[in-house]
């Protein structure tokens, strides 16, 4: 028998049964529930008179639609207030623990899952949200599902799935100064394309991984979906265990030792075979920024806006032109000359404490350009209070940023935090799709330190030029 991959091992340990067509009924250990993808699922259960199979396997929180200001007051009446209310009522009716927006445990689902220790190595975890792949950083099989599939998980604690092919991304070398895992994942997406991981579960491996913190691994796995893959994983190691030990929902005592003993066996076997292998030398990567309207339309910040005229393939040329028109950019323009109006630091990609520390490191003693409006939205209440304990909020405020409460905010623009038509934003989020940050808004994706550097300069800039 050939060796098994990390993905194979977690999959095999959750296969309830295999159907004659080769698909598997996969057991789901954990389900994170938010306000946007759950109401229709709860409605479906009610219509059929179905209960939750295991209410204890779910945690609910409202993160997408909540405001990031004036959180000590109820939401103003409107669609968002009603959506949050519906989640509260459903959680109560079905016996699911619900974390209110003012609670010290509040935050974006993909930030609080790990913080709570709800996310565990070797587990299966789902959420009606595509960035659920974030939790793969712990060596879990974690993937986003639609609302109908949420209903299936509520009622059966399982989901019928066909196993993905296996893809290994080996990261070689060490990143240079000013280069973060965000630049690495953007460079990877630019290399393999937004469909590069389609049909595959990605495992990130190689020497560069061992050196990454859990937060960096989460940033990496988070954007797997932007490379077309629902699943992105890292094998658990000492870094993983150190992060989890003592978390409220992580196992404790003798159970912890038993769990760790098994988690140590999860790494892919040396003779395991992957369907696809990709290598990336991270020492050669410069800080990246996106210039277009898909995450693959990304370049080193030292580059220039591409010229559609130089693209021989007509379909690609049309696509390029469309992106440039939407983004309001001229071919050949150096990326560092692109002026910005707004800066957003936050999201489940880059809204954790290490992200805020690095952005604050760039901003300390500096002011953002007068033409720029910036907000910092911590990924969770825990991140926010930690940042305040470290005085980071002061640095952001002194630099001219607004310091907000936790939530998805301007990553998805479902609350009041959004770009106006034509506004251009340096953003630490994960999607530069048309209208993602507000109708007609223009998004440039980058790392927290690059967003901070852009805020100071008032245009896209190379954090390495700032010196320090």
């Amino acid at each position, binding site marked *: 028998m050939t060796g098994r991959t990390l993905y194979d091992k977690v999959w095999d340990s959750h296969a309830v049964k295999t159907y004659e067509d080769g698909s598997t009924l996969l057991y789901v*250990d954990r389900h994170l529930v938010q306000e946007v993808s759950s109401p229709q699922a709860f409605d479906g259960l009610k219509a059929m008179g179905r209960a939750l199979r295991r209410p204890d396997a779910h945690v609910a929180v409202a993160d997408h639609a909540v405001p990031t200001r004036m959180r000590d007051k109820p939401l103003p009446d409107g669609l968002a207030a009603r959506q949050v209310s*519906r989640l509260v009522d459903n959680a109560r009716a079905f016996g699911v623990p619900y974390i209110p927006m003012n609670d010290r445990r509040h935050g974006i689902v993909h930030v609080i899952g790990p913080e709570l220790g709800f996310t565990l190595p070797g587990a299966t975890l789902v959420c009606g949200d595509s960035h659920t792949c974030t939790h793969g950083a712990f060596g879990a099989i974690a993937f*986003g599902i639609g609302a109908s599939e949420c209903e299936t998980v509520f009622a059966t604690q399982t989901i019928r799935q066909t196993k993905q092919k296996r893809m290994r991304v080996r990261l070689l070398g060490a990143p240079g100064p000013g280069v973060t895992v965000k630049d690495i994942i953007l460079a990877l997406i630019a290399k393999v394309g937004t469909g590069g991981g389609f049909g595959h579960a990605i495992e990130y491996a190689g020497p560069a991984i061992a050196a990454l913190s859990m937060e960096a691994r989460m940033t990496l796995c988070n954007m797997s*979906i932007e490379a077309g893959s629902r699943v992105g994983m890292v094998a658990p190691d000492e870094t993983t265990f150190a992060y989890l030990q003592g978390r409220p929902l992580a196992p404790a005592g003798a159970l912890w030792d038993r769990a760790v003993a098994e988690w140590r066996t999860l790494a892919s076997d040396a003779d395991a075979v992957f369907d696809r292998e990709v290598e990336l030398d991270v020492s050669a990567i410069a800080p990246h920024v996106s210039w277009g309207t898909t995450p693959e339309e990304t370049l080193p910040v030292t580059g220039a806006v591409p010229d559609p005229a130089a693209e021989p393939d007509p*379909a690609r040329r049309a696509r390029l032109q469309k992106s440039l028109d939407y983004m309001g950019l001229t071919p050949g323009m150096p990326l560092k000359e692109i002026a910005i109006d707004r800066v957003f630091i936050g999201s489940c990609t880059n809204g954790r404490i290490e992200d805020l520390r690095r952005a604050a490191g760039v901003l300390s003693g500096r002011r953002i350009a007068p033409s720029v409006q910036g907000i910092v939205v911590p990924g969770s209440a825990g991140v926010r209070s930690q940042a305040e304990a470290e005085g980071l909020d002061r640095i952001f405020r002194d630099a001219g940023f607004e310091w907000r409460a936790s939530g998805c905010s301007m990553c998805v*623009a479902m609350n009041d935090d959004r770009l106006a038509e034509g506004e251009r934003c340096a953003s630490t989020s994960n999607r530069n799709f*048309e209208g993602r940050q507000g109708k007609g808004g223009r998004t440039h994706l980058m790392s927290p330190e690059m967003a901070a550097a852009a805020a100071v300069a008032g245009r896209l800039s190379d954090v390495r030029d700032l010196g320090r």
Partner: protein
Amino acid sequence: MEKFATLTSIAAPLPETHLDTDVIFPARFLLLPDKKGLGEQLFNERRSNRDGDGPRFVLDTPPWNQARILVTGRAFGTGSSREQAVWSLADFGIRCVIAPSFGEIFFSNCFKNGVLPIVLDEAAHGAVMAAADAAQPLTIDLEAQAIRFQDGRTLPFAIDPHRKRTLLEGLDEIGLILADDLADISGFEARQRQERPWLHLTREQLGYLDDVGEELR
């Protein structure tokens, strides 16, 4: 769920690639409470001119405003998992989407809502796009896994057998699992509690969330 057998309709040509779910169904409308009526918001930002003079989005342009099939470019439905992307297509009347590739979550959401996504290679896709441009009706025969053109040509397409059955019979997936697999699920849970007890939260652990307050409202 509405059954899918055969569908005959003209197809709307939308050759653009990378139409992600944010373009199909912009996020701000995710606050709307129901599945019904979402066709109004389908491709909202592309449809600023729905009935006036001047250029209109293909789904607002006769005869394609009646199309029940959409032919589009690669990487359709990538991005967010929002099922509203499928609900809005279905509400608009689209029951079949043909593209060279799809976002995975969108693809699987289609089958939960009686919408058939078909992946075609470039040559076949080109032929279907040409028929769409010419507003020639196509027949999608799911049982035979074939797309029939008006002139008698036929193109085969592939589909996972379980998903095919789900669409043909309009099956309730949850009902199926509850009817056939409950004993297996219970057996699995009992084994898991023995072998990997840490995957089940203890009463004490769950107690950590006991003191959460009420939502302000």
